[in-house]
């Protein structure tokens, strides 16, 4: 089997894999026409590569202290300068990408399926299940996310795991809403009736036939939410409730550089640029994906 352009664009795919790969190819082609989406994809790709190959990309150890070289300005040996303990900021930013990527992925892995399942159950069964689940969702939705996350972390105790849990708890409701809306439109479709007549159980219908159709709008929404997740995580780190020292988390690094902002500006500003770059990348990519996958809500 050769993966050729023709094979990918075949109007009558012979297998499920071929159809899926073909669809993926079309999406990529359309994304490539959107310059901002390409920039976004490059940034996110860069983030992933940096996180995977951090030990090779970093020039120094992220935690090794060198008190004789503290608070040095950016130079050819220390590209982003050094912090108050003489640690190389570039290397810390590079290793920080691992933390950011972990947070973002874990939140997505926890919150998206949770929201999907809640929304699909509410939409599929309707009635009181819908009413109860959706009023819980609405209560969560109408609350300030950051404040709620702060309160949760305060209760659970500071730390990166608890920050992830807190952010996930506050971000699932949006996904539940989307999944419910999608389910409502699919639930009475003929193909669902068909599998129902064949004797498929509700679990099977939801898991095999409804959830897969929710994924594309889900991917769009999750990508668009990533920037917010990164900012919240950095905010928690900044306040001192997220990742704890000596972890090179970007928000916590800004917090430590706060004291030196007037004379040694690079300590606090450099990690900020990393946050902005990555968040922008997700925004660009999310916007582009929305135009391709969810044309109804695109054109914004």
């Amino acid at each position, binding site marked *: 089997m050769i993966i050729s352009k023709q094979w990918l664009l075949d109007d009558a795919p012979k297998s499920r894999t071929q159809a899926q790969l073909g669809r993926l190819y079309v999406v990529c082609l359309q994304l490539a026409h959107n310059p901002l989406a390409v920039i976004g994809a490059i940034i996110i790709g860069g983030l992933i590569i940096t996180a995977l190959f951090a030990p090779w990309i970093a020039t120094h150890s992220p935690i090794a202290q060198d008190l004789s070289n503290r608070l040095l300005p950016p130079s050819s040996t220390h590209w982003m300068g050094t912090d108050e303990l003489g640690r190389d900021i570039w290397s810390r930013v590079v290793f920080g990408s691992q933390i950011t990527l972990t947070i973002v992925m874990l939140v997505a892995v926890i919150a998206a399926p949770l929201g999907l399942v809640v929304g699909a159950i509410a939409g599929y069964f309707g009635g009181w299940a819908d009413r109860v689940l959706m*009023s*819980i969702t*609405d*209560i*969560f939705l*109408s*609350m*300030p*996310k*950051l*404040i*709620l996350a*702060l*309160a*949760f*972390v*305060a*209760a*659970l*105790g500071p730390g990166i795991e608890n920050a992830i849990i807190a952010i996930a708890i506050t971000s699932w409701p949006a996904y539940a809403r989307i999944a419910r809306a999608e389910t409502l439109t699919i639930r009475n479709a003929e193909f669902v009736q068909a599998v129902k007549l064949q004797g498929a159980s509700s679990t099977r219908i939801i898991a095999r036939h409804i959830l897969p159709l929710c994924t594309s709008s889900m991917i769009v929404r999750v990508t668009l939410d990533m*920037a*917010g997740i990164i*900012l919240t995580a*950095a*905010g928690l780190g*900044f*306040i*001192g*409730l997220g990742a704890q020292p000596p972890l090179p988390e970007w*928000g916590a690094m*800004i917090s430590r550089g*706060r004291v030196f*902002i*007037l004379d040694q*500006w690079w300590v*606090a*500003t450099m990690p*900020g640029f990393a*946050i*902005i770059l990555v*968040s*922008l990348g997700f*925004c*660009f990519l999310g*916007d582009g994906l929305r135009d391709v996958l969810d044309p109804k809500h695109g*054109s*914004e």
Partner: protein
Amino acid sequence: MGWAVNKNDDTAIAASQTEALSRYFARAVQVGTAFAKFVATIAVTFLGLAALTFFIGRVVPIDPVLAMVGDRASNEVYEAAKIEMGLDRPIPLQFVSYIWDVLNGNFGLSISTRQPVIEDLIRVFPATLEMATLGIIIGIVIGVPMGVTAAAHRGSWLDQVIRTVGLLGYSIPAFWLGLVGLAIFYARLRWTGGPGRIDVFFDGMIPPVTGMLLIDTLIAGEIDVFWNAVSHLVLPATILGFFSLAYIARMTRSFMLDQLSQEYVTTARVKGVPEFFVIWRHAFKPIRIQLITVISLSYAGLLEGSVMIETIFSWPGIGNYLTTALLNADMNAVLGSTLVIGAVFIFINKFSDVMYRILDPRARS
């Protein structure tokens, strides 16, 4: 002349009056139901919020009794305190009494200030309100024209710039922008005041009336202090305003694009209406109601966003109070501020919802 109407006219007038009355009555019922629904959803959501804070308060790993009596207390003292705090009762009962306390504004004592949390909150809230209000004004005054301009010049470089500014609003950490702003505009350029609401020199000179310094200084007639307060407020409020501006401009742009693609706009253009009037008189008018929703949502968002900004600017508002409480593990204060911010947030949220329904005929049905 008007009194001498014949019978037919009389009944006609009566009929039209009844009709007008019944229409008026139907409208009143509509608004009434909307209002009743508003009260009901808001009550349910508040209850949910209280349930959440109650839950958060209970899953705290630290023993609340131990925090109260200290770890050197004897067993008897510990048990007595536990009973006094009502923690020996079943959880549903505790929840009911918690709701009762919340309704009475009893959030307990703050560990760090040794004062009732509710008094602290009343003291610090005006500072946040002042900053958020100025922030939203900046956001509206700049954001709405920006969004309209972007939509009017769709696809041009101006549009791209405005869109990018909008996306930056989603990507820049508020605390970072605050720090950089302080470093540049306060430390380097000396254009604005530093952290805090006022120079230390003026501290305590102004008797608090509303708690909002800009108003209190004017009441006291202290113009110097007023300008000093302005210089302190302008930077944090602008930064806060930037974030609402990003959202408002983005939404305004997409609403305007919707309108500009409508046929009545084409008609107006064909008639020869100048483009400026097409945009501001024709297309802008229908989106004002949608904008009310967007603006109130971003106002609520600013109350939340002020947490970070206040921390950076040592602004003695509710956000700063909350972060201080977080770091001291002062749970009464944390939950109290969460409740208050959450309640204000929910109220604005639902209120804008109901306003939209009352104002927009299409959303009534």
